[in-house]
């Protein structure tokens, strides 16, 4: 997330969302989606893409896809 939104990883927390991160616009959202899909080898549906509106929701979605939430959360904040 940090690479996509061009902000330090420390600034990202559970509540991070388009409301708290200024650069999180619809185009950056698209970058986030394809970045996550590539990283975790998943494909999100149209509905899921619309629902991915904060960090906690994204983690939840990824863990429901069989990714262990603690590690994916860690990778998430580090890699993105």
């Amino acid at each position, binding site marked *: 997330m940090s*690479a*996509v939104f061009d902000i330090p990883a420390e600034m990202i927390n559970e509540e991070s969302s388009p409301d708290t991160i200024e650069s999180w616009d*619809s*185009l950056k959202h*698209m970058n986030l989606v*394809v*970045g996550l899909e*590539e990283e975790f080898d998943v494909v999100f549906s*149209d509905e899921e893409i619309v629902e991915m509106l904060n960090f906690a929701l994204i983690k939840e979605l990824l863990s429901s896809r069989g990714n262990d939430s603690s590690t994916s959360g860690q990778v998430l904040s580090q890699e993105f």
Partner: protein
Amino acid sequence: MLGSNSPGTGSTSELKYSEILKLHKESGSNLNSGPYRVSVLSNITVHQIKEILELPLRLEHINADVSIGDYDNIVQDSLNCEGSNAVIIFWELCNIVDGLQHRIELFDDEQLDAILEKAKSEIDLVFKNLQQTSLVLINKFTALQFSRSNIRCNRLEELANQLNRYLTQQMPANTRLVGIEKVLSDVGVANALDMRYYYSSKALYTIEFFKAYSRYISPFFMSANGKAKKALILDCDNTLWHGVLGEDGFDNIDMSPNSKIGAIFSEIQAMALTLNKQGVLLCLCSKNNPADVAAVVSSHPDFQLRKEYITINKSNWQDKVSNIRDISETLNIGMDSFVFVDDSPFEANMIREHLPEVTVLQVPERLHEYPQMFRDNLSLFYNLSFTAEDKNKVEMYKQQAKRDSAKKGYTDIEDYLASLGLKLTVSVDDMSIVPRMSQLSQKTNQFNLTTKRYTEGEITSFIENEDSKVFSFSVADRFGDSGVTGLCIVKLCDDSRMADVDTFLMSCRVLGRNIEYAFVDYLLGTLKQSEVKTVAAQYSSTNKNEQVEDFYDKCCFVAKSDSNSTKKYSLDLVKYEPKRLTYIQVINGRSD
């Protein structure tokens, strides 16, 4: 993958998107050259190209700064590109009119015309607005995204063709067409598209597509920044020919277009020669006795890179690092202008280590991959300079026009054959091509009357024997030469009053041109002159040579006996009526 073997611009293609973003961020600070500004004008959403295009160029020390125009504002944005060094245009048919890919089939002719005219006048405007920009890249129009599995030629394709013709006609000298359809096929259309974002954001393409696209167009930017490769330095043994000259000798190195392995090296040489014709300098750098290589360069029958094409020949026992340094000094061009090809991992690594700016290509272990690897790297030499390319184009168009006119307008096959300018060159007892003749007898199955297989030794003894003659022939037309493609062995008996056709065969490459009849005319004429009275011949059937079952019947030989597998014929030469095919010119080649 396009250019996947090329270093530099190819090296980011394996990275994940997140890695590209991260490296991209780090790459910004350590460039001291002025920015190279690229504007992307588009009628769809393509913002993801920015980092994916900038990173590989920055790694090549081009301080690329890509800015993305407003969505669907190509014409307006083209007015604001004064500061850009280059402009890229994504003009997608599906958004020329919203949803054109499905609506176009339901439009009436008037609406279709209106769309075409609108697009044309917008193209005019954009070209006019961009006339001060030094480089404009515009993607060819394509319907592939929507028509790849449609068996009908549909309207979207037709529109793409019309617009591409228009682009070609109107394109100013600063503009280049980008073969986006090549990128789509390289990645695969399905992998290039993500329709989820088409419906939500009018974005079409995936990260994978943008990576391949950036790789594909990078030679334009390399050339624009003076970073195109200028010289090709080639090792010799197992790089330009198969074998080791010092050990195997002049006669045993193989680069023959007619041998299985030699053909690979023949293809490499032809591609190197093509590069030379496009202005690339060719140099040799090989550990060999200078005189040995010089002999191959000047007189090996299969060697194509003759002295006049070689700028510098460094065939000696010095190490290659010193040799390449010498070449660089002599030509006064930098190491980053060189591409070096060698089969030896030792030599390749030595250059990579000591001269890291040289692009090193190593001959693949699986030799059949070698020409494709070479081909994938041709764009390293791409040169934007207009004259060289224009010259090339002119030549291409000339040839194409010739071939087209050769195909057009002939109602029967004889007319067509007559237009080809066929030449049949016959040689008798030519010792210099014994290996090829033996190979023909071993390999030819279809047009082969007796299918007798002969070794080189056996062919040689036919040639040396007074009572037999070995005829070989090649066929040429206006478009090229087939090389040695026919063989006929005749035994003389009864004090040379009778001849027996032991072998007659032709490679399938020259079938369908009535060459066989012209040759039989020639053969029988020659035999008649040397006082032969009758000619015996036979057809031995195999499961592959059915097509020549009645060949001697067609040549008016008289059948004598007919068993299951063999038909024997004979012909009284006085009774033979030549076919005299006026459209095949027969030439006497070498004879003993």
